[in-house]
Structure formats: structure tokens, C-alpha cells
């Protein structure tokens, strides 16, 4: 649905987006992550044909973003960063206006506006001037705007920013819902959100794609896993006994009351928990905790986006 091929954008001498390529299939919800200034917004602006690319191409639903810009814009619902809306219109006026310029047939405008207001919980606020709305409500108006012509592709720049926890839940559910028959590319800084909503993730760092993969394969990256255990025993002996576990790279220990807390970095495909408990039993130490952790999205994100360039 979205096909991006070596897309590049320069602002003068700075390269904001550096030859990125990726694909998003129909019915996928893809999280687009990256630190501030990594190039997320620039990429989204290029995909919505707001900004032209310096080089490279992209196509949405088979239409080239540059040559066939109007067709692309009809296919895409876009929620820009900061949600710039007209403050002097009422919610329903605004949505009806947007529906008309997005080509919703005149007879269906009312019905579509009703529908998206219902979906985004705006029905009670329909007569309010947009200028008096809170940030979270504006955000929902922006989302309703993106949905008003029921486009097959949604590009959402930080859709849950400024919402309260209940609204965040609603919006997430909405996006998950939409994901079944829409293609969604959304950027966010809230990593648990990506874990909840997205099927796949793209991490962009300094204008390049640093990582892309399915959410259920996140753990299988080269990051390795971790074993955490709490053993009732003296620290030096525990260290000696456990550091030699098969597949263990490094060990960290610390005393917590009578317990020694152990954190072991181990190979991805190695589960040394059984062996650990056997060794503890051999030494007569009791176990209070024993678990294996896959690296979280957050760890991957931090690792990919904080390392200095060689």
C-alpha cells in the first residue's frame, strides 16, 4: 500500500531523511519511531505530498507521490503534528468542509460527519468553536478529519499526544480497529503504545532506518536476553557459581537483605534458568525470583538511537 524507495530530503546542507526504503502492506499498522529530529515528520510530510523529496520516490496505493499528488491525497488521511485547525469554525462545520474538499459526495457529507464524530467522541461537542477546544479534543477533531472520507491509508503524526489516559485508550482502540481494513503509519514517542497497537515497527535515527521488524520478532534481535534471579546466599560465592553458566556473557550482583540479586546477560537462544536453579540447590541456596527477559522495544530503541556513529 505504501512503497517507499530511497526517499531523501535535504534542507540545505542537512540531510533530514537519508535514502530510506520501506513497504507497508494493506491492513498493517506500522509504528514509526525515532528520537525528535530523526526525520519522522519530514518523511510523513513527503508521503502526504506536502514536501517534495530531494530524491527517491514513494507510491501510495500505486500512485506516485510526486506525479500523481492529487490521487495520493485522496487516498490518504493525514493527521499532522500539532493539528493546525481553523479556530473560527465549529466542529461539525469544519468536518463538513473537510469532507467536501476531500470529495465526499454532497449527499453523504452529513452522514460521514455524523459517523466520524461518533467514532471520535465528538458528537456532544459538535457546535463548539474549534478555538475553544482543549488540546486533546483538537487532536480528536484532527483524527476525525483524517477519517472523514474513509481513506484506505492513514498517516498519523503522534495521534495520542495531549490526550488524557481514557482518551488514549479510546484512540488506541480506534486505531487497532481501523487497522483491520486500513493501512496505518503512525509516529509516537510512547513505546508501550506501539507494542499495543502496531504489528510492525520502523525505527528511524538520523534520517536512516535503524531497525524494522515485526513486533512478535522484536525479541529475536541480536540484543540477547537477560536472566534475573534472587538467591539467598553470600554474594562472592553466588557470583562464582553462576558466572560460569552456559551462554552467560556477563554477571551483575547486588545484595538485597539476605538475598543476592543476579542479572545475567545470556545468548538469545539459551535458557540457563534450569541450570541456575540446580546450582543454587546444590549450594543450598533458596530462590526467591527467577525469570528470563526478552529485550523490550524500549531497550532496542535506546540502544539503536543513543549509540554514537563510528
Amino acid at each position, binding site marked *: 500500500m505504501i512503497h517507499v524507495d530511497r526517499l531523501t530530503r535535504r534542507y540545505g546542507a542537512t540531510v533530514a531523511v537519508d535514502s530510506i526504503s520501506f513497504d507497508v502492506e494493506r491492513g498493517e499498522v506500522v509504528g514509526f519511531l525515532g528520537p525528535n529530529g530523526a526525520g519522522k515528520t519530514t518523511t510523513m510530510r513527503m508521503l502526504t505530498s506536502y514536501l517534495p523529496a530531494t530524491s527517491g520516490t514513494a507510491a501510495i496505493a500505486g500512485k506516485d507521490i510526486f506525479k500523481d499528488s492529487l490521487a495520493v491525497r485522496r487516498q490518504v488521511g493525514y493527521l499532522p503534528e500539532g493539528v*493546525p485547525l481553523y479556530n473560527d469554525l465549529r466542529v461539525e462545520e469544519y468536518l463538513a468542509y473537510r469532507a467536501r474538499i476531500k470529495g465526499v459526495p*454532497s449527499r453523504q457529507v452529513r452522514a460521514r460527519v455524523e459517523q466520524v464524530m461518533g467514532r471520535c467522541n465528538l458528537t456532544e461537542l459538535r457546535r463548539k468553536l474549534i478555538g475553544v477546544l482543549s488540546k486533546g479534543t483538537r487532536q480528536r477533531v484532527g483524527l476525525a478529519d483524517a477519517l472523514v472520507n474513509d481513506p484506505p491509508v492513514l498517516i498519523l503524526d503522534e495521534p495520542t499526544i495531549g490526550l488524557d489516559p481514557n482518551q488514549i485508550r479510546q484512540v488506541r482502540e480506534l486505531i487497532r480497529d481501523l487497522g483491520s481494513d486500513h493501512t496505518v503509519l503512525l509516529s509516537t514517542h510512547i513505546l508501550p503504545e506501539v507494542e499495543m497497537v502496531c504489528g510492525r515497527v520502523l525505527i528511524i535515527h538520523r534520517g536512516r532506518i535503524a531497525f524494522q521488524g515485526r513486533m512478535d520478532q522484536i525479541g529475536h534481535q541480536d540484543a540477547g536476553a537477560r536472566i534475573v534471579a534472587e538467591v539467598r546466599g553470600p554474594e562472592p560465592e553466588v557470583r562464582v557459581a553462576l558466572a560460569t553458566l552456559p551462554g552467560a556473557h556477563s554477571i551483575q550482583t547486588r545484595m538485597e537483605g539476605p538475598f543476592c540479586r543476579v542479572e545475567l546477560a545470556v545468548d538469545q537462544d539459551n535458557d540457563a534458568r534450569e541450570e541456575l536453579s540446580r546450582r543454587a540447590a546444590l549450594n543450598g541456596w533458596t530462590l526467591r525470583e527467577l525469570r528470563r527477559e526478552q529485550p523490550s522495544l524500549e531497550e532496542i530503541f535506546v540502544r539503536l538511537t543513543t549509540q554514537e556513529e563510528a
Partner: protein
Amino acid sequence: MRNVTALTRRELISIFCSPLAYVVLTLFTAFSGFFFFFTTVAALKSSMSGTFGILSFVSLFAIPLITMRLLSDEYRTGAIELLMTAPVTDAEVVASKFLGTLAFYLAMLTPTLIYVAILRRYGDLDLGPVLSGYVGLALAGCMFIALGLFCSSLSQNQIVAGSTAVVALLLIWVVGEVGQYIGGEFGPLLTYAGTESHLAAFAGGRIPLCDAFYFISVTAFFLFLAVRALESKRWR
């Protein structure tokens, strides 16, 4: 066309919801009433020509007050992003802003019909020159709006857009006046470039096509520039 209708409608809501529009309307009506009294009633003339001259001159200042926010405000608030990612062309955007303002301008001229009614009632008014005079005013208004819209497409600062438009309009006005004084080779050229001689040609009760062409072509020229300026925003 459907897009233009929807966009123009939103433009009209915006104009008529802003307090500035009513300030401009009030001032325009007050000024025109004041000058109508002095140039026509007090001078015991039964003709609108003096009033038309004043109306067009006041429009030089009134129109930029309306046009200055047209695109500048879109840039400043960032709303331009939603506009330019919607399936509408830049030309449609410019056209609808032009049409919306033109509708407002015509609404601004409407109260002056009272003067026509007064002169009809109490004087001996020839309607021909009045009709052609209004056509001239409307055409001059188109040109002023187009220029103001172009100035607004250049800056995200309303004040800059507005004052640039006033200065440019005054300059075009003054050039014609200067032309009449210097004469010689360049005199007629400058007079032709200026606004006033063309407006004056509408006072006679006929529509002078040549002068209408002047207004229409200048309008088209500045609308074209405004579309280009809007397009160029994408490249920066």
C-alpha cells in the same frame, strides 16, 4: 469547481466571523458617507462620480486589511499543511480566497446603494454612469484583492502582507498621477500604468473595454503570481 465552492464557503465564514471584517465595513461605510456628503450633497451635485473616486481610494486601504490574513494566517497557524495535503490544487485555493474576498468587497459596496437611492429621490440622477461606475469599482476591487492576496502569499506575517499591499497599491495609484504631470514621452505610459485613469474611464456611462482589460489582466497576473508563490512554499 466543487472544491472551489467548499473552500469559498469556508473563506466567507472566516471573513464574516472575524471582528476585523466589521471594523472595515463600518469604517468604509462611515468614510464613504462622509465624503458623499461633502462631494455630492454639500456641493449640490447630482452625480455619483465624486463618490466613486473616493470609494476606490478608500478601498486601497480597506482591501489590504481583509486580504492580509488570507494566506499569511494559514502559514502562521500551520493550517496550510492540512490544506495542501487535501486533494485540492493550489489554483483552487487561490481562486476561492479571491472569490470569498470579492464577495465581501461587494457586500462592502452594497450600503453605498443608499446614496444612489437618495440622489434618485432628491436629484436628477442619470443611472448609466452609476452602473458603469459600479462595474469599474468592482473591477478595480478585483485588482486590489488579487494584489493583496499575492502579498499575503509571500509572508506569514499579516502586518507585513497588509502594509506591502497598501504600499504597492498606492504606488500604482500615484504612478498615474505623476504621469499626468510630467507629460512628454513617459507621461502617457505612466498614466496608463496607474489605476486612476482607467477608473475615470468608467464614469461616462459606458463600459470601456480597454480599461476593463487593464483591470482584468492585472488581476489575472497577480492571481497567477499568488499560485506560484503558494506552490513555492512546498519547496522551502
